[in-house]
């Protein structure tokens, strides 16, 4: 019984994923009707996000290290966080627009379709414009990886870091976007946590007081996106003296954040159907 139930859930999940892919593909096709605009947007996006890293580079022209971290170590932190953000942003960035969907009645329309609301919202207006960030982040990350002393376990940690980081950002995006179910326009407030959290992770977290690090671990868990796993990849002990086990805890943090976000989403939808606004 339990097996068939799980099987059903998996099949259902895969079908939703397929529907997501089909909706996303339509949007890519639509964007491709204007190829020049598409390419320019992607390049522009890459250049703008690239400036972030140029900033770090310039900073290192005047410093030898940042709180004990060298340029290529910071590049690893920056690259991995940026990559995770780009993945999450590309996959589900549209969820930020939930307030607009509520105001325009689009959400009502979506509720009359046989596909879970979250799948529809995330796939709507899917854009590869963020491909720019993705490319830029991949290059920085790839470059920084050449300085890592690889072992099989480190490869596993690196791969799981990117997936878990994506999940953490997925959770933060969805969770904080849900505020809009209660107050219509809270995008800026949500951005402070999502994009704000992403910006913070571009630096070694030991530049912050320990209390901030604790907050970034247990409240807004962005430290799991790159900080803890990168410490392991770099073979460093935690400068803030946090437990060693945290360096392997990213998948747990990713799954928990996402699960929490899905719960918030469900109560958001329930609030919407019980108040209609």
């Amino acid at each position, binding site marked *: 019984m339990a097996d068939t139930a799980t099987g059903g859930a998996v099949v259902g999940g895969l079908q939703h994923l397929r*529907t997501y892919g*089909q*909706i996303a593909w*339509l*949007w890519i*096709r*639509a964007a491709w009707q204007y190829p020049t605009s598409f390419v320019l947007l992607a390049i522009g996006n890459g250049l703008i996000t690239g400036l972030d890293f140029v900033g770090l580079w310039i900073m290192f022209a005047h410093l030898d290290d940042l709180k004990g971290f060298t340029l290529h170590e910071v590049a690893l932190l920056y690259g991995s966080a940026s990559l995770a953000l780009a993945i999450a942003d590309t996959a589900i960035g549209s969820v930020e627009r939930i307030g607009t969907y509520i105001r*325009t*009645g*689009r959400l*009502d*329309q979506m*509720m*009359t*379709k*046989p*596909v*879970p609301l979250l799948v529809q919202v995330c796939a709507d207006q899917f854009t590869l414009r963020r491909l720019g960030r993705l490319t830029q982040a991949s290059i920085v990350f790839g470059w920084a990886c050449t300085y890592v002393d690889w072992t099989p376990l480190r490869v596993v940690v690196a791969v799981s870091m990117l997936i878990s980081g994506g999940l953490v950002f997925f959770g933060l995006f969805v969770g904080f976007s849900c505020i809009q179910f209660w107050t219509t326009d809270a995008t800026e407030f949500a951005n402070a946590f999502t994009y704000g959290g992403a910006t913070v992770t571009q630096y070694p977290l030991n530049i912050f007081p320990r209390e901030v690090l604790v907050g970034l671990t247990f409240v807004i868990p962005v430290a799991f996106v790159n900080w803890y796993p990168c410490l392991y990849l770099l073979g460093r002990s935690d400068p803030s003296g946090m437990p060693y086990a945290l360096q392997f805890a990213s998948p747990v943090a990713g799954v928990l954040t996402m699960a929490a976000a899905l719960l918030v989403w469900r109560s958001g939808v329930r609030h919407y*159907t*019980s*108040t*209609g*606004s």
Partner: protein
Amino acid sequence: MSTDADRHDPTQAGALIEVQDLERTFDVRRRVEGRRRRSREQVVAVHDLTFSVRPGEMVGYIGPNGAGKSTTIKMLTGILVPTGGRVQVAGLDPSRNRVELTRRIGVVFGQRSTLWWDLPLIDSFELLQRMYRIPPARYRENLDRFIEILDLGDQLDTPVRQLSLGQRMRGDITAALLHDPEVLYLDEPTIGLDVVSKGRLREFLRSLNAERNTTLMLTTHDLQDIEALCERVIVIDHGTSVYDGSLAGLHAQGGSTRTLVVDLVDEAPPIDVPGAEVRRVEGPRQWLSFPSDASAAPIVAAVASAYDVADLSIQEPDIEDVIRDLYSRGAQA
């Protein structure tokens, strides 16, 4: 509330839509002047609403703005949870089985398109095929048929934002019907359409109902929509049903009037003919009102024989007037 003889029994078996003592209240926060805190107020959008619809019926659901029409539709589609009473569509509780119900119903919101604005029309249809997992053969058959009847063949590759209002509406209706729903809810389907488009749309809905026995429930301000399509009308005002029966019965209840507009060759004192009353005079033009159930022919003949008439036209009663009339009578009684 209604005493109409052909009111439908809400508890009859085999009903497709069943609404019983339905209630919906909203908590509204209002800013009170001179106070910092907002007061909470309960607004009743729908209450004591009871009706049922049999498969294949075409029902006009009408009422003034703010009467609770869209709140009802939202509860019937599961977008909104009722605060009281019971609602069942196709044997399902809409808010609890919303996703399951979406496969059995089609919804068209006249003012807002369900189509993807930037994508070619055909892309929206293909996407819906995948969302509903419509078997390819069935999809093809439905699409071909709707495209032909609704004359959408040339628009398939046009982005939705470039379509005219009428084309978009036909696209929306096609989109709502591809998965063979048992019920089609239409919210103001003809709003903003020209006469030809309106006529074609009504014709299509009639044939849909005749051929597939699709149940239609439409909200509209256009009395002609109702006249062309619905054998049954439910009037809602202040959140509750004030009339449920035939359209003719509604006219009789409302005691509404039609208006004969007469353009005389020269200015004249108010026209005096039996059975009609002058409401307004403006130069050579005069407005005469007469009961809706009376024939216009003798009045027109009387006017034409006694005056030099340049032109004549008859204005049908506005549905809003009928309802307003009906309701003010209800309030007096």
